[in-house]
């Protein structure tokens, strides 16, 4: 059993939990055709492998990690876009695996995704109005009320001149404008839970701040529970109170963002924090404490997955998977803190 159930928060009832992931794993078979199997070439990629956490109502959590650590897969799992291989995801107390039919429609209304690439997330053949109307159609909003809601949503994301852009096609708009549309589309049904998958990574730096501010304001105004997926610690710090650091399909550290940034516990979090350039001439540039790249996800190291890059690795790291250890407000998955 790889999954480790997150420790229940003592004395608190679970009613303010919006999302609860319990030992969630998603494995992908690669090279699963007959010949590859016969040649022994087929392998299992453990994109997400035993992740547990809970999100409380109104919380904004950053999911941080480098490319290929499974953070996007985790976002897709939370939204029931892919089924988990094992473990369970509870949305407002209900296992998402059992949601279907009318309940699935209700779930789609309340859980939304903001896409990474706004140029891809809108159908090029539909006008902005048609794209924005689609969630409303699906939710059964009467035709007469749609335009009002569309305009309201565009106002919410501070889209400039909403009246003019409605009949445009995506290719006639800039990335920043499109990302606002994508956000408007996600927010138009007033969801309670939003996953933002690197929403500014495809945008010019000059428009990033605007989008991030909108995201932050909207989240506060609507009281959204949000997950912000990113590889950029600075962005996560800007929009999230809590940060979950992932490495190769596992959580390594989970705690308030400021604490993680100022005093990272896990060696990997330390490396991430060090990797952020500091724009100050006096600040000495510390060398990264780790070397090499992330190992092949098809064949991760035994025990702690970070051990082959970790400067503090010792024998126990190779044989035993680290359990969650509570350190103040934080949970860290590392043998160093197991006294």
């Amino acid at each position: 059993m790889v999954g480790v159930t997150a420790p229940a928060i003592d004395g608190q009832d679970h009613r303010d939990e919006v999302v609860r992931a319990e030992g969630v794993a998603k494995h992908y078979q690669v090279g699963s055709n007959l010949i590859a199997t016969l040649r022994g070439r087929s392998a299992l990629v453990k994109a997400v492998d035993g992740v547990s956490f809970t999100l409380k109502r109104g919380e904004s959590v950053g999911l941080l990690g480098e490319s290929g650590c499974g953070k996007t897969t985790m976002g897709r799992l939370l939204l029931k876009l892919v089924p988990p291989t094992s473990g369970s995801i509870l949305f407002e107390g209900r296992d998402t695996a059992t949601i279907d039919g009318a309940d699935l429609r209700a779930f789609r209304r309340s859980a939304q995704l903001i896409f990474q690439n706004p140029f891809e997330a809108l159908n090029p053949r539909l006008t902005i109005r048609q794209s924005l109307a689609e969630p409303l159609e699906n939710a059964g909003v009467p035709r007469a009320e749609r335009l009002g809601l569309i305009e309201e949503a565009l106002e919410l994301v501070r889209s400039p001149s909403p009246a003019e852009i409605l009949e445009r096609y995506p290719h006639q708009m800039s990335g920043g404008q499109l990302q606002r549309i994508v956000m408007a589309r996600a927010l138009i049904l007033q969801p309670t839970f939003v996953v933002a998958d690197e929403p500014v990574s495809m945008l010019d730096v000059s428009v990033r701040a605007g989008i991030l501010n909108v995201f932050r304001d909207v989240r506060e105004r609507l009281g959204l529970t949000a997950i912000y997926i990113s590889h950029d610690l600075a962005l996560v710090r800007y929009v999230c109170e809590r940060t979950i650091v992932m490495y190769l399909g596992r959580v390594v550290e989970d705690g308030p963002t400021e604490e993680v940034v100022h005093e990272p516990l896990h060696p990997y979090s330390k490396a991430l924090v060090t990797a952020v350039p500091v724009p100050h001439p006096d600040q000495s540039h510390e060398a990264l404490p780790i070397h090499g790249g992330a190992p092949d996800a098809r064949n991760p190291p035994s025990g702690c997955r970070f051990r082959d890059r970790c400067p503090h690795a010792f024998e126990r790291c190779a044989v035993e998977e680290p359990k969650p250890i509570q350190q103040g407000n934080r949970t860290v998955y590392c043998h160093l803190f197991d006294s």
Partner: protein
Amino acid sequence: MPSETATTTQAAYPSRLNAFVSGLWRIVRSIHLPLSDPFAMIGIIIYLVFFLVAVFANQIAPHDPTEILFTESYDLAADRLPGEDGFVLGTTSLGRDIFSQLVYGSQSALLIGLTAAAVVAVIGTIVGLISGYFGGVVDMMLMRLADIAFGIPFLPFVIVLAAFMEPSIWNVVFAMALILWRDTGRVVRSQVLSLRTRAYVEAARVSGSSNLKIVFRHIAPNILPLSFLYGSIAIGWAILTEASISFLGFGDPETISWGYMLQDAYASQALSTGAYYWFIPPGVCIVLVVVAGFFISRGYEEILFPKLKE
């Protein structure tokens, strides 16, 4: 009051007409007719000409194509040369007007071509959409069916089918429906496999769209040009097949088609008597229609696969 309702209906009527026209135009645009390609344009014009000839066959043809004609002196008007006694392309050995046969032949060609194209495009597209979008067991079963269809030789299959059923031009359409969906299905499926991973398809799912809605709104419009391409290829195939079947003598003796004309000419030894006016016109018509299909598909090739253009 009545006058007011009358004006409102009048006002509503053109707007509905407008909506219909603009809807039609949207469909035409979504098919992406390769209008800029001169060859494709020639193909479309050829189709258009044959279409008009078929529609107005009654007006164009001077005689009933099966009627045995006599001259004014009550002689059998057989084996007349073109222009002789007012027969534009002459007559057959049985005294039938070749030009009228040619005109009416375009009718059956059109009928077979269009129905076969529609059947092939529709079945292939639906199979491809279902197979590509849903994947899994459904995909496997449909693709194994396609494998079987690929394994069946087409012309012998039509002959066997004709042997089991009454000779009719619909045999060809039926056989094409049973077999030729395989190409369209395979190609559409591969396209759907790539389309369904697009972010906007996932975005549609997140926004609560049903599978049906995703397939028809977000995926199908992108593969319509492909379906139409395979449809236009199928027109040529159908006419060619019908001609082959008729020439081999398995066709419908009641229906005048270009293949029937060739068979008639062959059986009457028109080749050895040098009656070129008899067998060349239907041959040319078949070639023109098939080539038109090829031209149009060539035009599509440049739209669908622009990298091939070099």
